[in-house]
């Protein structure tokens, strides 16, 4: 490059630049406290418009009052002083997006926090957006394979569904979400993990786990940590879903996890109280329902005419002492299309994942299951419910008829089969084989403490000896008579060797 060339280019840049001078709207910081600024002036500002502070920090106008506006500061507010000049940008809060964001961890305003360098973005997406309308949507009928047997079999989740994961602390809520992400490898799914108010150590662990499982290639982490301002925690889930929408607009399927929305509601409560909005039940503001409903409504499955693609949402809610009738849990339960309910008791009984099958539902139901899975898991939920009842009943007497005994034995084995280790997702076809063996009674005479061993062995054996069955399930999502005979033979052969 010659000197002349440089000078010419610079001249051109400077000429372009001179034309950019324009009138700016400015205001002054009147008050500043806890990440909230009261700003005078800025007469024509829009709600949730971005403003900039002198040190480059951004803010969002939330309260528009007669003679001042309330701004939440996104970032470090320790250097902002009273009297500082605040400039309006004329733009609604937006987040930079690009395909390069896959594999990265960003904060609530889309700035990388993983130390892997600058993120070049080609586009920006607004953080607040109205959810897709009725005509653009389509029913949910394709499964999200979570790799967790109890979920895929009994509480199936479809692409575009919103399934709540709810439970006390330390019951494995995040574990289910992480397992679901790990299992999306090769399933044509992009994952977004939004961490709200979580410990940074926990996030680091999750990131390392996803990296080790090769899941970061298709995953984005959006984080607003416990040490960051409440304003960032409030924005983070909307940022996450905007990134998800960017991929959905390319016709891709996206899985988004909000971990967790209880902390999100708490952050919003903090902001609302500081902005002096009237508190309601549990001191949450009046629009806390809308806070979550407008977020979760953005999860959808779009029809082909409007570009296809879907966003499946797994919001997480932490309950206190199993109280699902508190304000935020009831709200989110009523918004979502079903919930996975985790219980401490089950967890300590060794039933992990600690899913309470009775109170967990998926309102989309079996339309999001492949046919083969529907066939083997159809009666499982009912069987388990009957088992629970019989189990309680059988504690009183020992005189039980054979049918009841059989049901009890089958139930115990079902519970055993549905137990699963963390970070060990099971492929759908393997689940079908295991559940086939269970529901058709092939496991009835296997000792309970050897069920896991039997399952493991059966999967390995059948994979080599029932290839026709596997091929049918993978390609056609259902088996035919020949395939079934193939599998039956394999199971019987395996049982003879399993002693």
């Amino acid at each position, binding site marked *: 490059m010659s000197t002349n060339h440089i000078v010419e280019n610079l001249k051109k*840049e*400077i000429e372009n*630049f001179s034309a*950019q*001078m324009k*009138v*700016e*709207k*400015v*205001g002054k910081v009147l008050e500043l406290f806890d990440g909230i600024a009261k700003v*005078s*002036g*800025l*007469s024509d500002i829009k709600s949730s418009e971005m403003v900039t502070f002198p040190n480059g920090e951004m803010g969002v106008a939330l309260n528009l*009052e*007669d*003679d*001042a506006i309330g701004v939440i500061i996104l970032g470090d507010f320790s250097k902002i002083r009273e009297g500082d000049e605040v400039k309006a940008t004329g733009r609604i809060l937006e987040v930079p997006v690009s395909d390069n964001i896959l594999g990265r961890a960003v904060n609530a305003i889309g700035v990388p926090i993983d130390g892997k360098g600058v993120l070049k973005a080609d586009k920006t997406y607004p953080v607040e957006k109205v959810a897709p309308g009725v005509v653009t949507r389509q029913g949910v009928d394709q499964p999200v394979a979570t790799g967790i047997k109890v979920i895929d079999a009994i509480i199936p989740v479809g692409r575009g569904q919103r399934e709540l994961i709810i439970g006390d602390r330390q019951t494995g809520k995040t574990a289910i979400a992480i397992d679901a992400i790990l299992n999306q490898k090769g399933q044509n799914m992009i994952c977004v993990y939004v961490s709200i108010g979580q410990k940074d150590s926990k996030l680091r662990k999750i990131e390392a786990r996803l990296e080790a499982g090769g899941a970061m290639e298709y995953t984005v982490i959006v984080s607003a940590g416990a040490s960051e301002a409440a304003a960032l925690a409030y924005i983070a889930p909307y940022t996450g879903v905007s990134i998800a929408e960017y991929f959905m607009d390319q016709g891709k399927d996206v899985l988004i996890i909000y971990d967790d929305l209880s902390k999100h509601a708490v952050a919003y409560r903090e902001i609302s109280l500081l902005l002096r909005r*009237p508190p309601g039940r549990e001191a949450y503001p009046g629009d806390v329902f809308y806070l979550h409903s407008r977020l979760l409504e953005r999860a959808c499955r779009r029809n082909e005419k409007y570009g296809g693609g879907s966003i499946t949402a797994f919001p997480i809610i932490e309950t206190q002492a199993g109280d699902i009738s508190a304000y935020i849990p009831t709200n989110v339960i009523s918004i979502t299309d079903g919930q996975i309910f985790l219980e401490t008791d089950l967890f300590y009984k060794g039933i992990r994942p600690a899913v309470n099958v009775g109170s967990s539902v998926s309102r989309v139901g079996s339309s999001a299951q492949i046919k083969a899975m529907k066939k083997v898991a159809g009666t499982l939920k009912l069987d388990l419910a009957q088992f629970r009842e019989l189990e309680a009943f059988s504690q009183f007497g020992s005189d039980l008829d054979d049918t009841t005994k059989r049901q009890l034995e089958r139930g115990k084995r079902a519970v055993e089969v549905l137990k699963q280790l963390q970070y060990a997702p099971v492929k759908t076809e393997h689940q079908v084989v295991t559940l086939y063996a269970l529901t058709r009674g092939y496991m009835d005479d296997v000792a309970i403490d050897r069920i896991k061993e039997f399952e493991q062995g059966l999967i390995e054996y059948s994979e080599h000896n029932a290839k026709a069955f596997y091929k049918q399930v993978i390609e056609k999502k259902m088996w035919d008579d020949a395939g079934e005979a193939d599998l039956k033979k394999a199971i019987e052969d395996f049982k003879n060797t399993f002693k």
Partner: protein
Amino acid sequence: MAAISNNNIARAIYLAVKEKSTAEQSLLFPKIVRFLARKKLLSKAPDILARLSKIINDAEGKVAAKISSVEKIKEMDKREIKKNLSKRYGGMEVVLEERLDEKILGGYRIEVNDEVIDLSMKNRIGKLQEYLTKSS
């Protein structure tokens, strides 16, 4: 919980004072001050007065513009600026309030209500720096 804003107070003062004779007004002023003191609003007086002057200007079809420069502005330039600002603000009469400020290095900085037209050297250099570092 409708709180009374400074703007409301300024408007109320304006309505109370306007169309009164000078004698009546001079009776009113101490009352207003006593009212502000009673309501513990004296600390907000500068803001209220600023708003009051804007209300009066609005009513009289005037607009106040603060202009900062390093040196005194020539009469000819002032006329030009007034003409252009008047065009921008729908033909209102522009009242210039001049201020000398060395910190802006050069050029002008015009403030009208909450709008700023920053043609100062300082701002341009800052913007240029931002522009060049961003595009590289």
